[in-house]
């Protein structure tokens, strides 16, 4: 590993994120290039009208898609890093505390109840409501002690319940088309999203990531256990609450607009950890960038498949992430052996 890359991982990750963002903007089924978009914008800017086909494709289809890839990937990556740091458990990810399954359940209920037909934003609103209800239930279940074990157990209970309720909703679905729609939605996708969904999710993701960033030093202190962190002036209960609420806002809003995109929250922190000497605070921003890179790369890759039924994003992130993760496991095994 090059030493300066270790000292400044963001110096590489941020340009890479920018590159993938631009790639996501330039590629698509329509074959419209960025140069074409620019030419179109100039021509119509002079004419003073709303823009031609290329401009519409860019602003209505590609821009929301790329922005959501950036935000959702970042939210998932950073939440995973914060949860792993807080719970001191390398297997932690947003699903472990029940947030993403509950957000998915909320969205499915919105689908199922038919609100989705009358209100365009019913599904994402349902998802956000599901995530917030998950937090309330989590604190009710875990009680006053936000101990690691209680939190994980309560989260697993919530996850199982939400998973079962989602299956129930699916099996009772009266309409096979609705069923297919829900199943596809649950696999996660950035396709056919609009700027409305970006505007809906972005504030939640911004507040959520700000909360997660605010506990960075406490996560460092927690590497020596709860007592030591507490003695260093970081009240562990408040830190736990911030991580849970931050994750619920960031991941809840993400799942609400894109469906469940697995693997990012689990794998990205592990990929980034060696770059920051395993320090939990320094892991947060690289995990945001890394998550954004993985989701943007996955989403761009699946669009290269050409016409026909698109692969689902959740599937591609897992297919791309799994080999990296496997390589990491093998490398770690060699070090430990």
């Amino acid at each position: 590993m090059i030493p300066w890359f270790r000292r400044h991982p963001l110096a590489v990750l941020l340009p890479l994120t920018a590159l993938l963002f631009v790639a996501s903007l330039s590629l698509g089924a329509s074959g419209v290039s960025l140069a074409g978009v620019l030419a179109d914008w100039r021509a119509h800017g002079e004419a003073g009208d709303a823009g031609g086909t290329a401009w519409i494709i860019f602003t209505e289809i590609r821009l929301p898609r790329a922005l959501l890839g950036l935000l959702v990937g970042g939210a998932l990556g950073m939440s995973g890093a914060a949860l792993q740091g807080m719970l001191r458990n390398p297997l932690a990810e947003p699903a472990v505390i029940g947030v993403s399954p509950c957000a998915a359940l909320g969205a499915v209920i919105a689908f199922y109840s038919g609100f989705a037909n009358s209100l365009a934003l019913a599904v994402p609103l349902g998802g956000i409501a599901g995530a917030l209800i998950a937090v309330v239930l989590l604190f009710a279940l875990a009680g006053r002690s936000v101990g690691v074990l209680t939190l994980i157990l309560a989260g697993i209970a919530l996850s199982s319940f939400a998973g079962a309720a989602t299956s129930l909703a699916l099996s009772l679905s009266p309409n096979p088309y609705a069923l297919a729609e829900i199943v596809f939605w649950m696999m996660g996708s950035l396709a056919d999203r609009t700027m409305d969904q970006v505007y809906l999710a972005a504030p939640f993701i911004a507040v959520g990531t700000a909360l997660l960033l605010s506990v960075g030093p406490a996560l460092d202190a927690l590497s020596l256990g709860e007592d030591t962190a507490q003695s260093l002036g970081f009240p562990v209960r408040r830190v736990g609450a911030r991580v849970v609420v931050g994750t619920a806002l960031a991941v809840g809003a993400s799942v609400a607009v894109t469906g469940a995109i697995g693997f990012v929250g689990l794998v990205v922190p592990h990929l980034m950890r060696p770059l920051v000497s395993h320090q939990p605070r320094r892991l947060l921003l690289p995990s945001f960038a890394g998550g954004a890179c993985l989701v943007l790369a996955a989403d761009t890759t699946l669009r290269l498949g050409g016409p026909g039924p698109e692969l689902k994003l959740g599937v591609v992130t897992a297919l791309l992430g799994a080999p990296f993760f496997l390589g990491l496991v093998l490398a770690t095994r060699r070090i430990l052996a």
Partner: protein
Amino acid sequence: MTTLEARDIRLTLDGRSVLDGVSLRLRAGEVCGLIGPNGAGKSSLMRILAGLRPPDAGAVTLDGQPLPCPPDAATARRLAYLAQDRDIHWPLTVANVVALGRLPHRGPFRDNGAADRAAVERALAAADCAHLRDRVATTLSGGERARVLLARVLAGEPDILLADEPAASLDPLHQVQVMDLLRTLAGAGAAVLAVLHDLNAAAGWCDRVVMLHAGRVAADGPPADVLEPGLLRTIYGVDIARGTVDGQPVFVARQFP
């Protein structure tokens, strides 16, 4: 003048009385040893003194003011706690572990400044782990790890050090070094309270020894008074002979004949 004082501390866990009216006053400039058999309540008392859990009854004060529980940053800058649990959860380098001791001293989004780095260097040198600086802390031996965690506490340059078994699992050389280090800290004006199981260390390095038994203070005074064979036999339930080597008391435990 720094004073940490506990008055009439009571604590019940799962219906069992762990601390039953413990009072203790720790003053600047002294090394105080806290001894007693396993389960006497030493670690519970240390956690209460560090503000990590509230007692069921009684009060802890720092310079006459109630000790905040959990401690705030201002308290964390003055009072350091060395946990008995020596887990390090991520493969951090030794230098990064020791730097955690500076967390209460700096702003939340600042890296360690020059003063912080200097304090970390002093702590590494004092705990004899400067040569381990770039090692991964999770791969160290138990004794090395104990010294690194002690260096982490020293990096905070506290007025009060509460150390739960700082000398456990150290080889004789490092045990002597750690006890010397506690004396140096006290010499510089800090108040030190250390849980010890080694009576020789308690006799050789402490100004004062507090003996805890079944949640009560059984004795509190100079080592020569507290470490008295008759009392030790009653408290520990084993025959402990006291001799002297070069004028220094030594203790040998043996089964009742």
